[in-house]
């Protein structure tokens, strides 16, 4: 690839680019509410995701109260319990994690980190948020609808999802869920196209693809995946709506429901499962890849060392993204699909372990011979490594088809996916918020509150989910509202369940402290300055903090180097910003 410095000739147009395309707000409403500024949209996305995420957190408390102390809380009956798990799962996966990583971090960081003034299509970007908000409201309306929200489990498997034995199946619950998903996907598509096009078309001069920070690589790849995967869910949702409202039979075979022959027939429930997981598995990586990218940058910045094996890291992200489209049926080993599929899907699934392991090695090798500052972002990054490695390794149990047979549908699965796509990515989100909050607000988050939040969250979450694997190994099935009298379940399992519930309440409480910190530090936090972490990437080099609309003032940045020039031998400082031309030390072209 061409070194940008070599063609710094008259052929290059002046770097002062007039920002005529940007819509400049004329009133408070267009500045803060119907805003077309990606940074405001990012904050809107983040606040909405956090709000609905708090609902999901409270739901998890209610579930844990029931599991830990069955029979104590009369209002949590079976119907409510299944509604809680369904809404908890769907909110966390789609409306919190996907929305926060892509709509929140994507919107804030993509234009700033690639050196653009804004997203390429600001108006569509604004619509994306408002559709997302509408989707969240429709989803939440389920709590107030007759019959309550759907209790079909977040996987929404038909035929039960639209039959009367499931809460919300014949009421409003399932309809609102499906409508909400459809709205979410439409909104996401508008945002997602923006993220992809902005990365491909909106980069500052000199910002070659192989100079982009891994955060952008992660978000970019995840967005491409989401644009390809969400349509499968869209189609499945529309078909299920037809089955439920119009009496079609996409997913409905001949069924006798509670003694009564239904009219529908000839459809395939397992077809839905394939569509769902064709979306659902990439979804795991849609959440994981931004986390991979962000944590790479947190580790590099706070260890004052270049990320180890940058090119390998980029390729690993791309390969994981591609492979994740041909592993979906590992969620369906015991679904009754042709068992011969097991050979193929077990093999592809375990192959993914290799690029994933390479990423882990490169993170820990970045620490090696680093200058590790144990700041809050670094602590969260370390905790991410521990929980992600733990959760990733248990994935090797479940991905290996025959091992999955006894463990499938048990608490082992619950423990696994919470560790790997719940705890680990959320630890990255926290690390990222501690890292970028100073850029967003101009102030640092309070360190003492952050330390308490970190230790309670990390150790508490580990104590919740690590022992939970063993309940699954014992054979305790998931999605049981009560275990009742079951011969093979010893009394000690109930004690462990109570312990897990107490830890869950504790970890949840720590999140309230975190939210308090976010608000408190807005006014009382220490002044951060423009680049408190002495980081290299472009977002820390803006003329103002927080960055103004248009990000860069009059002149767009020019990029001279990759994102990881930390501790370059001979350089005066232990970091060289990407937009700093050759200086005091050798520079490196990752892609040359």
């Amino acid at each position, binding site marked *: 690839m061409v070194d940008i410095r070599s063609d710094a000739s008259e052929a290059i147009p002046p770097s002062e680019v007039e920002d005529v395309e940007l819509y400049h707000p004329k009133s408070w409403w267009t500045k803060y509410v119907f805003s077309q500024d990606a940074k405001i949209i990012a904050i809107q996305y983040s606040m909405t995701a956090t709000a609905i995420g708090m609902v999901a957190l409270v739901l998890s408390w209610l579930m844990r109260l029931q599991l830990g102390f069955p029979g104590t809380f009369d209002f949590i009956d079976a119907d409510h319990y299944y509604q809680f798990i369904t809404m908890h799962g769907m909110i966390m996966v789609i409306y919190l994690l996907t929305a926060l990583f892509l709509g929140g971090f994507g919107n804030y960081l993509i234009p700033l980190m690639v050196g653009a003034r804004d997203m390429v299509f600001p108006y569509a970007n604004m619509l994306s948020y408002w559709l997302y908000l509408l989707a969240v409201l429709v989803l939440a309306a389920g709590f107030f609808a007759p019959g309550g929200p759907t209790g079909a489990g977040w996987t929404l498997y038909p035929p039960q999802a639209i039959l009367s034995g499931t809460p919300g199946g014949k009421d409003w619950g399932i309809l609102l869920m499906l409508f909400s998903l459809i709205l979410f996907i439409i909104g996401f598509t508008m945002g997602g196209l923006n993220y992809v096009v902005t990365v491909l078309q909106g980069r500052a001069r000199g910002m070659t693809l192989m100079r982009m920070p891994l955060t952008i690589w992660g978000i970019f790849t995840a967005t491409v995946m989401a644009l390809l995967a969400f349509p499968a869910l869209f189609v499945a949702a529309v078909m299920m709506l037809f089955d439920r409202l119009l009496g079609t039979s996409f997913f409905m075979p*001949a069924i006798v429901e509670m003694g009564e022959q239904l009219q529908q027939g000839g459809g395939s429930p397992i077809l839905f499962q394939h569509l769902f997981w064709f979306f659902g598995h990439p979804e795991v990586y849609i959440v994981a890849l931004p986390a991979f990218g962000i944590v790479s940058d947190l580790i590099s910045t706070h260890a004052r060392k270049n990320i180890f094996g940058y090119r390998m890291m980029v390729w690993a992200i791309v390969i994981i993204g591609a492979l994740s489209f041909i592993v979906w049926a590992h969620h369906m080993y015991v679904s009754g699909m042709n068992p011969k599929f097991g050979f193929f899907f077990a093999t592809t699934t375990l192959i993914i372990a290799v690029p994933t392991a390479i990423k882990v090695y490169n993170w820990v090798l970045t620490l090696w011979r680093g200058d590790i500052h144990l700041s809050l972002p670094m602590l969260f990054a370390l905790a991410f490594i521990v929980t992600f490695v733990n959760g990733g390794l248990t994935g090797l149990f479940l991905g290996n088809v025959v091992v999955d047979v006894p463990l499938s549908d048990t608490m082992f699965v619950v423990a696994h996916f919470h560790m790997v796509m719940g705890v680990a990515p959320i630890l990255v989100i926290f690390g990222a918020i501690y890292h970028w909050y100073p850029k967003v607000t101009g102030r640092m988050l309070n360190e003492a509150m952050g330390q308490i939040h970190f230790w309670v969250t990390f150790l508490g979450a580990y104590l919740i989910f690590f022992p939970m694997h063993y309940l699954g190994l014992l054979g305790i099935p998931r999605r049981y509202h009560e275990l009742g009298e079951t011969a093979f379940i010893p009394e*000690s399992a109930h004690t462990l369940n109570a312990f897990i519930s107490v830890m869950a309440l504790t970890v949840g409480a720590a999140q309230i402290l975190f939210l308090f910190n976010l608000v408190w530090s807005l006014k009382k936090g220490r002044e951060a300055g423009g680049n408190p972490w002495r980081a290299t990437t472009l977002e820390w080099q803006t003329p103002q903090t927080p960055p103004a609309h248009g990000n860069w003032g009059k002149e767009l940045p020019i990029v001279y180097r990759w994102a990881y020039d930390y501790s370059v031998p001979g350089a005066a400082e232990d970091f060289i910003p990407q937009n700093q031309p050759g200086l005091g030390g050798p520079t490196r072209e990752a892609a040359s």
Partner: protein
Amino acid sequence: MAVVLILVFVAVGSVVFHLFSPWWWTPIASNWNYIDNTIIITFWITGFVFVAVVLFVAYCVFRFRHRPGNRAAYEPENKKLEVWLASVTSIGVAAMLAPGLFVWHQFVTVPPGTTEVEVVGQQWLWSFRLPGADGKLGTSNTRAIGDGNALGVNPDDANGLDDLIIEGGELHLPVGKPVKMLLRSVDVLHDFYVPEFRAKMDMIPGMETYFWFTPTRTGTFEVLCAELCGTGHPQMRGTVVVDNEADYQTWLQEQQTFTQLLAARQEQTTIASSTSSSK
């Protein structure tokens, strides 16, 4: 320093928990101890990797933590190390996948001479059907379900007339004989799950699924549903009793055939309709 100690504690504590955990799988009652062995292999490999990575991180934090005047090394890539790590990982993954696929091959290959037993799931009840004297199960159809024919056995299929029908009762199986469980549902998804047998499989309305196993010890085992099937999901329980051959034959004699069942229902209906004509 606290960070280092806690990381070491997490690694060591996890191993100690694993070794002393009172929560472990139920004593096996089928031939699938191969599965248990594969799990053990996987535990060893993954446990080693987990401890190695976490301890390495702890060492890095200890050795390379920030002190005034420190400066990190500058080493963007190390091709040799990266290739070596990728290779070792591939070998470890293959070491888990190979036995896994080998056992999976056994799992999906039903040995010849296996007896077939049908399990029918409905909200929220287990029913069973065994072949009669002809050793064959008759065909079935969800549309045939109606009065006296809860499982939808095809009344026009001679093979089905002597089938033994157990509605919502216990299933008995002879010890030591391989059995193929044919799984069917008449309403929603269910999953036939006996933890001691290790095997499980979803049941799907509109199609038939299966798994096979050989019961290896006598005893009474609880059947659970392992696929969320509505409000009554946790209450959907059943019982499988593994008998020795003599007990099994005794039990078999006591079961009703499809023909007997239909005749009995016919009688009941006649009595019912003669007492009240409002049906």
